């Protein structure tokens, strides 16, 4: 599969500050790629460099085979962009905005269909400055699609949307993927990234800390499945003495499982010991768990060791 975006050793400096510090990744054609990171991680700077809106300090960037800073004139007819915190001309309506873009891009666009796609039909003729924040975002998505782009940059397109509208945008993204387009998505909603993305990169402090499919990232950086027990404190000591990896978490005891069958054995051991317990459940890491662990890890500029278990071989 060819790459729509290729980023190699990308650096962006502001004086002494390196906002983006040697980033490498690529986005394959036809995939939904999510670019995640906490505020100030270098995420928006990287995206704006890819969109041709910001000049890089060093490194190589190719978007659809073009240098976005130098070749923006050629690139902009092939990409669609919904910027973070989208704004438009305050006195124009969504319909007028789509018409303006369609004429500039010299495209024939069914305004009603596009407005319906982003669930903005009922506000088609309302002026932008009377629309809500969520409706602004929907209009941004609609405008990004006017030129029938091969690659869509959607920078936090669902921020501020209610759950129904958010799911409508999810459907748009799935539809774009279904049509063979590439989607470069940034979002603060990790559930959204997990559901929609083929692959993900996580950036922190200007560096990529993880890249892969959501499952790969969870497998690689997440902890094993755990049995979570709520009961008396002696439970932890008892289980640790059996050589199990035990951690305490918010008053509960978590025991790492090698396999599902381990859970049955542990529960039998507890029953036999006579120690009191109130409830149990099994738990796996989500992308959000992994994200928080990775971002937390990088706070000192390096990857720390795994959480220290109380027992184990």
């Amino acid at each position, binding site marked *: 599969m060819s790459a729509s975006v290729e980023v190699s050793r990308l650096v962006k400096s502001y004086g002494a500050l390196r906002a983006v510090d040697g980033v490498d990744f690529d986005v394959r054609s036809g995939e939904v790629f999510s670019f995640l990171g906490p505020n100030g991680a270098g995420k928006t700077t990287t995206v704006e460099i890819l969109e041709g*809106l910001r000049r890089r300090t060093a490194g190589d960037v190719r978007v659809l085979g073009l240098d976005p800073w130098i070749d923006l*004139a050629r690139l*902009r007819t092939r990409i669609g962009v919904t910027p973070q915190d989208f*704004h438009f001309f305050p*006195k124009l309506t969504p319909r*007028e905005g789509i018409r303006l873009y369609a004429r*500039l*891009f010299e495209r024939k666009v069914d305004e009603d269909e596009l407005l319906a796609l982003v669930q903005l039909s009922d506000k088609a003729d309302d002026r932008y400055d009377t629309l809500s924040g969520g409706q602004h975002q929907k209009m941004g998505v609609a405008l990004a699609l006017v030129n029938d782009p091969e690659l869509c940059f959607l920078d936090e397109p669902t921020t501020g949307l209610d759950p129904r509208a958010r799911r409508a945008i999810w459907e748009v993204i799935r539809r774009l993927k279904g049509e063979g387009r590439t989607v470069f998505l940034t979002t603060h909603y990790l559930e959204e990234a997990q559901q929609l993305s083929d692959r993900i990169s996580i950036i922190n402090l200007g560096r990529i800390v993880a890249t892969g499919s959501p499952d790969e990232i969870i497998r690689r950086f997440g902890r094993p499945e755990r049995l979570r027990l709520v009961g008396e404190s002696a439970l932890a000591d008892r289980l640790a003495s059996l050589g199990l990896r035990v951690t305490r978490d918010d008053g509960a005891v978590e025991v790492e499982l090698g396999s599902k069958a381990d859970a049955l054995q542990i529960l039998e051991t507890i029953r036999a010991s006579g120690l009191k317990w109130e409830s149990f459940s099994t738990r796996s890491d989500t992308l959000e768990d992994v994200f928080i662990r990775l971002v937390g890890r990088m706070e000192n500029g390096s990857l720390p060791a795994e959480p220290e278990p109380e027992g184990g071989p």
Partner: protein
Amino acid sequence: MKFRNVVTYLPAFAKGYIRNPLGLFFALVFPVILILIFGSVFASSGSSPVPLTVQNLDHNSATSVAFLSALNATGAVSLSFVSPSAGNLSSYLKANSLSAGLVIPDGFASDVANRTPVDLTVYTNPAAGAEAGIVEGAVAGAANAMNLRLAGGSEVVTPEFETVGGPLYKYIDYLVPGLIGFSVLVSPMFSMVNISSTWKRDKLFRQLSLTPLTRAEWLTATLLWYVSLACLSAVLMVLLGQALFGAHVTLTLLALPFLVVAPILFVSLGLLAGSVSTQPESAGVVGNIITFPMMFLSGTFFPVALFPSWLVPVAHVLPLFYVIDGLNSAMVYNNPTEVYTDLVIVVVVALVLAVAATRLFRWRED
């Protein structure tokens, strides 16, 4: 540059402008209000005779009536009469809020016949300086003419009064070009300061940079809009000035270059003011600091010739002064030489500002 993109974007910009009541107000409505107010207030200046209240205590003697006829014939004053029984004229004038009066004393005719010096008492209000001067000059002129005739002399040297350029110019004639200049200044300046700062904050320029519209096309469309507004404003001001106040102004081709170049100048200046500021609020302050002194010190509402001498050099460094001076030369005096001088200055300043604005005003960030 694709002209197609210019004509595609222009209606969108125009819609945004027209749907913003504040923009249209400053571009068209406010100058109309100003011409109505100033035109009405100063409608009489420079042409109408000054009212003069006369108390003839000489029982309407033939000599006093002849003197008053001569005074009336000057056209500088319009006489109204008050009865001798009204008492002291000064008190009468004060009680009736009148600013000028003349008393013909009892025995005026006999004193004149006997060649006995006789005093005419003229009351004027120092607060109405121009009117006081007119009354004093008219009465003195009529008295001198009477003295000359009594001495058996005749006028050898007589002044012929004309106004500069030919016809009798009035305040409204200077006001119309001034208000066109006001409109040409205010509309692009306020609008561009606002646009360049808020659009930058809202990243709208970056949004546009992702469309096929280029900076040059955007700027051309914007300039076309403000040139159209300037022309519309000029037509409106001239028609109103002529229809309501009889202004002696004509829309000539000589004025057209100013209506094209001045918007370029002030759009560039507005872009610069907005570009150097990081926040729309501070951009607004910078815009006001530039706009307001220019608005009042460039001869917009009053000719610069009336300014105190120390203020005149200040007016001469303001580009709007040359726009208004040029419009005056074109529309009032029809003086091409003066027009070209002003136009050269306006074009040079516009070019410098346009180049500076183009360099500083960027859509993308390094």
